[in-house]
């Protein structure tokens, strides 16, 4: 199963990953529109989707499904914007922004990995 993984100790909280993600997804540089989050603090925390699939069973309209590579994707056309996936994600890694009806999540595309200067995030197969 393809998914993003992390080594939080290496993270320097430069937020490059969030930036490249929001640019790829929403064509704008906005950390609140990234599919992963870097939380600064005494220890840096990286919030990312593990592709666990809890959201698939939560979704009332079956807008979420697992692809052949194991990645969970959202079908925006079927999504009704109920945000249950956002509330029920055990990692709290399903995100939404008020500019958009449909929430968004990591699809393990790896763009953020390329942007990370310290290898704090990486793609695991």
């Amino acid at each position, binding site marked *: 199963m393809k998914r993003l993984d992390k080594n939080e100790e290496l993270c320097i909280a430069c937020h490059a990953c969030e930036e490249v993600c929001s640019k790829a997804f929403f064509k704008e540089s906005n950390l609140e529109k990234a599919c992963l989050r870097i939380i600064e603090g005494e220890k840096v925390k990286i919030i990312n989707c593990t592709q666990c699939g809890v959201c698939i069973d939560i979704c009332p309209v079956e807008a979420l499904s697992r692809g052949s590579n194991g990645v969970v994707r959202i079908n925006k056309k079927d999504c009704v914007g109920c*945000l249950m996936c956002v509330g029920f994600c055990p990692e709290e890694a399903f995100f939404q922004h008020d500019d958009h009806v449909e929430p968004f999540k990591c699809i393990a595309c790896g763009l953020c990995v390329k942007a990370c200067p310290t290898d704090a995030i990486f793609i695991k197969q």
Partner: protein
Amino acid sequence: MNIENMKNSHKLLKKYDYKLGTIDKGYTNRTLYINLDNNTIKSKAVTEEMKEKFIGGKGFGLKLLWDAVKPTTKWDDPENQIVIASGPVGGITQYPGAGKSLVVSISPLTGIVIDSNVGGYFGPYLKFSGWDALEIQGKADKDVIIAIDGNTGNVRIEEAPLEAVDGHVLGEQLTEMYADSEKDKRHISVVTAGTAAEHTLIGLLNFTFYDIRRKVARLKQAGRGGIGTVFRNKNIKALVVKFSGVKSDLNNPHDIGLINRAGIRLHKEIRKFDDNQCRMRQVGTANIIEIMDEYDLLPTHNYKFGSHPDTYKIASNVFRDKYLTQDKPDGCWYGCSMSCAKAADKFELKTGKYKGDLVTVDGPEYETAAGVGANCGIFDPEYILENNFYCDTYGVDTISFGTLVAFVMECYENGIINKDITGGLELNFGNGEAAMELLHQMSRGEGFGKIAGQGVRRMKKIFVEKYGADPEFLHDIGMEQKGLEFSEYLPKESLAQQGGYGLTNKGPQHDEAWLIFMDMVNNQIPTFEDKAEALHYFPMFRTWFGLCGLCKLPWNDIVPESNISAKEPAKIPEHVQNYVDIFNGVTGRNIDKEELIVQSERVYNFQRIFNIRMGVGRRVHDAVPYRSVGPVTVEEYESRSERYDKQLIEDVGYNPEGKSTEEKIKVMREYREDQYEQLIDAVYKRRGWTMDGVPKVEKLKEIGMDLPQLIEVIKDLQ
């Protein structure tokens, strides 16, 4: 029966095309009026005043019904209406419990307005199709279906001779007929009654939502007060609405962020806490079956007792472990993470005309398990499921059914009625087979089922007039008020809850106030004034859900962390603020929690005056049967004699030593009845009503509800 044949047999009586329009901050600003006498269909404008005074939902329903009927209108007169409305907040998907439809009509049981709050997709789809409410007046000559297509903008009245009447069959048939594909089925919602709604006064309406995982049209019920009976009397077979394209912003809300944030907060609370609080996601409202038993509140044997040694057989975990499919998104509207609409799949029916069929059965809800199960002394989970299924598909309210069967059983055991009268049915407490047969008779319109289906009030009259029963005894044990059967809590040991049942607008249904713990267990509201405050605040607060298109359950069946240190924990203040936020977020108005209560007060007082206009709604109508207040019989007194003797000493100042049980019952009764009268005084005062229960003109002025048509009704009663 082939769907194509059924469809081809439809005869179009009227087609009405309309412009789709837009929804502005929760309102479409128009309502749909249909008259089946002459197949008129028209659009009516919603005024700013209507939104200000009546908000929506039940408020709109009451206003439209008031304008449609006369003080003399009976339930089966053509001018009686069925009005179905969502509300301004209805149809949002982000906050749990936002898909309710509010249905009002003049009730065959009570002769006054009944209102019922029901899930399923109909209300939101109706609004997204362009209508804040649907009014149906008149009677069709032959069975009709009214179909609304909210994407193309048309309404059709069609004769529909071949479809079934029973809800679970008809729901499937019409979902199939109106959907273009399996995937399209989610865009259909159907309203049906059932065959027993034709032969009884306790008919209900089923509202469907298509369950895409189980691939079945699920049914939610507008149960109380016999609206299904009105529906079939109008020769309506079904209503169908079709709408595709649901999104969380279809209400064009003023501030979607407020709604999103509140929704996510609540989803998270449910995820974190539900397993350790109410387990709504596992068992739904049935979670309180065993709790009510523990606290002596589970009605058993027609409300004689509050617990039973066999309750463990119908405890919530029995349903969870053996019958209910787990881990399905069982919301009756999108975004309801509380997910209480549980279902048992592939349940094999043992009786009746669908015997042997494998069906999906509802829940059961707590009320159903307590009513048809415990209250009738039937502690059998499979009976409860089977009865629940048949009540739904036949279109019968499980609460009225449970309470009236319990009454019949007590009458049977007391020799008031016998086998000759019941046609051979041995209706002792605990006889599930006989109770099932009674239900099947209601469907067929036969035998004693037809008499029982008239409800407790009419049965009392029949038993007195035809079988010489003692009217006083029947009055004491017949658990109805205003003609409506009590719902399933034992209020005997909580004065506040006696008021919670007795001082309601539609009749004794706990949706206005459930105060038993606050009163009896917590001892938080000891004085009459305290109880009156609770009987002001909670009915007003809970009325508001019905104005907005909301469900009550997510308010207090999940409790946030902050509540433990809240000043008034019973109100769940954090959730009250959520409701203020989502209302303001949708409508762009700026209410606070105080204004929320005033919004309800306007409609609540309107409904009270509506009752008075129909000849009900005065103090005399707020009296309750003594079974709900205290022990009627020696058996009841002696089952709790320690408690009652202590109360006689401590509260009444009467020494029970050496007195007969009959004497003690008499003294207890005088005391408790007097307490209830004092409670009424305090509540009327708090609500701004006269001591006869009539809203005062000055109260109406204070809340901005001094409308001329209301003043006209009450001005001579001040």
